């Protein structure tokens, strides 16, 4: 019985939160890794792309709510999501035309493109703050829980409760669907294959008649979708504020690099590695241990390895260790 209680607590506080956070990071890291693979630079504006997409989606959600449109038990934001994606795609394609294309034609060094993306970051960040303000926005509606703690306790007779939030399930399900579609696209369609070819060897791809501009356009479209979906899922699960999303850049980069930049499978694995380590290192294990250990062995403290304020420190420690010992990431990434 104690073991089951411990397992419940483990699921409730570690496995479920880390899985949904991991899915959000994985979607974000996929965007970063695709840009790195095709356009060959680390996009510092990615966190703000997510913020922009989410802000648009929130605005459309409010519009729908004011018209009285809802999505039953599911959050209205899911209905608004396609509009957010379209808006973000337009912004990214516009940015590419006005900003990035010039440097691509020049074959500028990757480091110049990174600085350029810093300029884009400023603009997107300011736009988002200007449009929606700097404060926290909570836009999740619909049913909050699939199972709440009380129902779970009644159902199982356990002392420990387990709550499964709708947003966690939506996050994981959406992530699975999106990743499946993405891999189907990359591996099975002609455009997807040309993208992979372009990423593997640009010159060879050009020689075999692949249109680079088309590849780049498709990449931005996919990145817009991935970034907006990741941002909206994160915002539904927690809450939205432009600054939090800017900060998400850190764990997202960590996920992409840990998995190996340019490698989509690696980005997903990296997302979960980072999410689980952040949660494991910053969770106070006292509760779980309390069920497992006899009272005499019980430690006094919270058994928390690091304060929650240091969760970014965890992802970066992992990032630096991976970079030092396996510079191309856990899965073979590329280096420009």
């Amino acid at each position: 019985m104690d073991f089951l209680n411990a397992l419940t607590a483990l699921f409730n506080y570690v496995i479920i939160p880390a899985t949904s956070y991991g899915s959000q990071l994985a979607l974000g890291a996929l965007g970063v890794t695709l840009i790195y693979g095709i356009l060959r630079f680390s996009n510092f504006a990615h966190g703000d792309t997510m913020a922009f997409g989410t802000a648009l989606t929130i605005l459309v959600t409010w519009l729908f709510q004011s018209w009285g449109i809802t999505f039953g038990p599911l959050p209205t934001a899911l209905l608004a999501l396609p509009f957010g994606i379209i808006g973000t795609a337009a912004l990214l394609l516009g940015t590419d035309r006005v900003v990035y294309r010039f440097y691509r034609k020049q074959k500028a060094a990757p480091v110049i493109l990174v600085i350029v993306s810093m300029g884009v970051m400023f603009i997107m960040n300011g736009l988002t703050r200007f449009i929606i303000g700097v404060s926290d926005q909570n836009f999740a509606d619909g049913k909050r829980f699939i199972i709440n703690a009380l129902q779970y306790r009644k159902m199982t007779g356990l002392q420990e409760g387990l709550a499964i939030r709708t947003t966690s399930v939506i996050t994981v399900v959406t992530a699975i669907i999106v990743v499946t579609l993405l891999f189907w696209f990359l591996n099975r369609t002609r455009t997807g294959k040309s993208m992979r070819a372009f990423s593997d060897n640009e010159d060879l791809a050009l020689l075999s008649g692949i249109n680079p501009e088309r590849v780049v356009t498709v990449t931005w479209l996919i990145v817009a979708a991935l970034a907006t979906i990741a941002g909206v899922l994160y915002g539904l699960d927690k809450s939205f504020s432009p600054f939090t999303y800017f900060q998400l850049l850190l764990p997202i980069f960590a996920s992409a690099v840990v998995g190996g930049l340019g490698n989509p499978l690696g980005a997903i694995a990296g997302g979960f590695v980072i999410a689980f380590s952040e949660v494991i290192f910053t969770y106070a294990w006292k509760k779980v241990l309390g069920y497992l250990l006899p009272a005499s062995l019980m430690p006094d403290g919270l058994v928390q390895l690091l304060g929650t304020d240091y969760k970014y420190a965890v992802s970066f420690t992992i990032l630096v260790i991976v970079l030092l010992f396996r510079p191309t990431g856990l899965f073979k990434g590329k280096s420009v």
Partner: protein
Amino acid sequence: MTPSIRALVVFIGVGLVYLIVGFTQSWALAVTILNDGLIVAIMALGVNMQWGYAGLFNVGVAGFFGLGGLALVLITNPPAPGAWAAGTPRILGSLLFGAVVIWGALRLYRAMEPGRKRALSMGALLLVGLILFRMGYDPAVNSVEAVTPASTGNIGGLGLPIPVSWLLGGVLAAGAAWAIAKTALGLRSDYLAIATLGIGQIVIAVLMNEDWLDRGVKNIINIGRWPVPHEVNLQKQQWFIHLAQSWGIDVRTASTVFVGICFAVVFTCILLVLLTLAELSLKSPWGRMMRAIRDNEIAAEAMGKDVKRRHLQVFVLGSAVIGIAGALYVMLHGLMAPQSYNDPLRYTFLIWAMVILGGSGNNWGSVAGALIVMLLWDEAESVGPAILGFLTSPLPAGLIKQHLIDNAVQMRLPVVGAVLLLVLRFSPKGLIPEK
């Protein structure tokens, strides 16, 4: 135009704009912006040494800046004997122990054969080390933070004179930079960028959360200044009251402006010293070697230059300059507010925009870029709402108009971004190009 005439024109232009601010808005505002500008100019000088001389991509600027501020607090604040008795030595001992454990793990890594055995023994050493460290560290931290928590609750300082802390601010930042460079400098440019971004954020997380060190988010106030007088004391001086009256300004405003000018003089002196040193180093054989390494690492290496060592050197030097700026910043405001550093846009990326705008590789350019961008940034707070109010005047009064005017200050972000992009596109060498 030759580069030096161009530089002269740029500086005269910048000076005129500051004068216009003084005449049209207020001298207090002009001096405030100038002081902010001089401090970021020192920061920009540091970033320019790393990026402009050597091509090192450091986006952990905010972290080094914060460390400089921490140094000022730890050096100049009065000692706290209560905290010392409560457990300061124990905290320092635990930190030393932690460093020894990490050093031991690194030794183990070098001494053992690669494989599972090595990974396991390193993991075991680190885990046991962490547990022992926490057993020593946690109780000591709790008892130090329990000493008069409302006013201090931290380990206090050494009570040394302030100029010492300017230097030691640089030394502290340089020490951190050395540790970071030892681990991360081998990485490729954009990996280095990501690693420094992360490490900068970790430094700020430490400053924000370790209350025993600097009271964390509770801030430290009333930090000393030197050689600048306090406004309150100045207002009591007979000669100053006479001076203010003879100029026909009220004493309070006069004291603010006077103190601001004193700060500006101190900062300008320090900036000029650093600028001279930076220019001399750039023109020396060392500077030529650095630029040769930046332009072609492989060729420089083939000529027998120790690229890794030079990179380490310039990274540490540049970070030290940023640390000095950090100490000055805390002295200017008399306040250590670690939370405010948690804004990489303002404290890291904005400095980058200054260096790029001014002209990477040119020290004078970085200073000019800093003065210009800071003016833009600070003015957005006072002029931004007015401009937007004018632009939206045809709109009917309502929620949307109010929202636009309220968020007008955010427009400075896109403006800085646009300036950065325009410079990169149309004049990649910046306002004052490298010679």
